């Protein structure tokens, strides 16, 4: 039982990271109706920036905050330079462009910082708390706290501000929003900035656990895609909850189902995606979209 509690707690901590990146995917999906396959790589390069700052003797927390700021600006620039010119292009072309971003960012990072594994300092103290027999690192609680703060902030913005209202309007119908005078282009650009900043947060949370290297985000990306699929691609809260669920499921499957084991954990994500899409394509919390033809 002790082990079980431990696994669940660890799972929630990992799941929180999936939740954060899934949130980034959902924000972009809601504003532009496609999935940014480069989301993980954008997070990875932001984390490298933070690491570079720590090498220049900037403290960990300020370094992460600066990298989040840079990611926000970078995300908007990428949207303006690469995504906006693709307006009206078929979905396939957009997917290919984000795959191009994925490859380009991944290789650029390898070129600049090399492919060796680097250790990234945690933003949280190293202490370990003992609760109900499980040993819980402060870092893991910290990740969960960050997730809660983020989801609070996001819903605060979405529900409480004019900008949030505009974002929701764009998510529902881009053309109508434009007709009522919402500056949709700027909104979409800001959505990319926010999503990229969220990715930077996720990267800074992952890096102390998985180490920092250009391939770091592959498994995280696929799990957050699974989370976004399970939660429903248009539901931020759903994505976060699904991220937590998936973190726990992944950990339990890796420990208790021997066929899976630690190295095939990734197959769990694939299985979840396929099952969800076959059984309930709109996810647990997503809205069902009927297309009129």
């Amino acid at each position, binding site marked *: 039982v002790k082990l079980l509690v431990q696994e669940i707690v660890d799972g929630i901590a990992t799941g929180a990271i999936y939740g954060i990146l899934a949130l980034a995917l959902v924000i972009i999906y809601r504003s532009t109706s*496609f*999935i940014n*396959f480069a989301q993980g790589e954008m997070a990875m390069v932001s984390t490298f920036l933070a690491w570079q700052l720590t090498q220049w003797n900037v403290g960990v927390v300020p370094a992460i905050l600066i990298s989040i700021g840079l990611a926000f600006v970078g995300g908007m620039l990428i949207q303006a330079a*690469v995504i906006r*010119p*693709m307006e009206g*292009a*078929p*979905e*396939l*072309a*957009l*997917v*290919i*462009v984000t*795959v*191009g*971003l*994925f*490859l*380009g*960012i*991944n*290789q*650029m990072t*390898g*070129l600049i910082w090399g492919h060796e594994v680097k250790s990234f300092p945690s933003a949280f103290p190293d202490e370990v708390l003992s609760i109900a027999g499980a040993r819980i690192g402060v870092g893991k609680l910290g990740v969960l706290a960050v997730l809660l703060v983020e989801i609070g902030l996001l819903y605060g913005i979405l529900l409480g501000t004019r900008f949030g209202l505009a974002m929701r309007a764009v998510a529902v119908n881009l053309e109508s929003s434009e007709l009522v005078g919402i500056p949709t282009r700027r909104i979409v650009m800001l959505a990319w900035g926010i999503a990229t900043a969220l990715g930077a947060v996720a990267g800074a949370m992952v890096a102390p656990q998985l180490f920092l290297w250009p391939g770091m985000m*592959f*498994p995280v*990306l*696929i799990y957050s*895609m*699974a989370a976004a*699929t399970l939660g429903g691609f248009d539901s931020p809260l759903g994505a976060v909850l699904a991220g937590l669920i998936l973190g726990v499921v992944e950990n339990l499957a890796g420990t208790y189902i021997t066929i899976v*084991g630690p*190295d*095939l954990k*990734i*197959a769990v*994500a*694939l299985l979840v*995606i*396929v099952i969800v*899409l*076959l059984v309930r*394509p709109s996810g647990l919390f997503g809205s069902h979209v009927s297309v009129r*033809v």
Partner: protein
Amino acid sequence: MTLRELDSRTRRWIAIGVVAAIAVCAIAFPFLISSYALYQFNVALVLAVGVLGLNLLTGYAGQISLGHNAFFAFGAYTFAILWSHGVNYVVALVPAFAVAMVVGFVIGLPALRLKGLYLAIVTVGLAITTEPLINRLTPLTGGPQGLIVIQPAPPDWTGLTTGQWLWLITAAIAVAVFVMARNLVRGRVGRALIAIRENEVAGLTMGVDVAAYKTGIFALSGGLAGLAGALYALVVGFVGPGSFTLIFSIFLLVAMVIGGLGTVMGALVGATVIEFLPTWASGINQSLSSIIYAAALILLMMVARGGLIGLLTSATVRVLRQPKARLFADSAQPRGAAEESTTRSQSRELPPKGRRS
């Protein structure tokens, strides 16, 4: 702009020229170039078969796949295992094709219900799962060490080297596959696939059996990738999990886009580019070729979705169409047609406004 805008005689000459050039290359190559260059062309040819499979699925039917590394791996390992257990290497290509085809069919089933994006997610999952799965099946696959694939010696009477013999085998198979693909996309099946890509519902109302075509093309595409994987194992002489990662799938996608989405010959062009560009670029920097690929993906999607073949086609049409229009105007065409083509050629010959004095 397509070659259809040219008259049939010009088209026939272009086709004969292309086919003749390819035939000369295929037969003369092994005796003209160094064995290493031949090896590289051989790898490019093998990749072209896989890229063609991907292009049938993505370029024609519009169903994106980032999981073709998995089909490659299934084909390569099936082949390597059977061949090491004494099955004839030509015979072993058949199960390699079949196994990958079955996997493609199974992956294609969810594709029936999924729109492009979700399909992309499923295939990314497949792509990332491939390497751990190979490592998990170590007793069968050799795990991270991979498997050595013994290259067959050519029959004595031919007097060829192993490299030349392998080239002739892959060239024969590749020609067969390309001819099959060309015939497939030129006819009913090709039109059905394009209908699915352009507007699924419209295709459905026109009587296209969307479900059957989608799973069918997924299976065929997977099978071709598996066949390419098997040939790859044969040509390289080794299979290992490191060869079949997500990045490999992305390279296939790059080859398809560079060559041209929805073209048959584009696969050959694109595969040649991705095989030779790294050799050329690695003198400058290891990552350079990948960065060029990334830029090519983005730029081509912005300005030229037809890829190199698309650009080449429109250039050819531009060059060859001009005399055709004049010819029509001079010859004894029916009145209407002659007039029409005259006006067209005249309007094209008008100088740009700015230069008019």
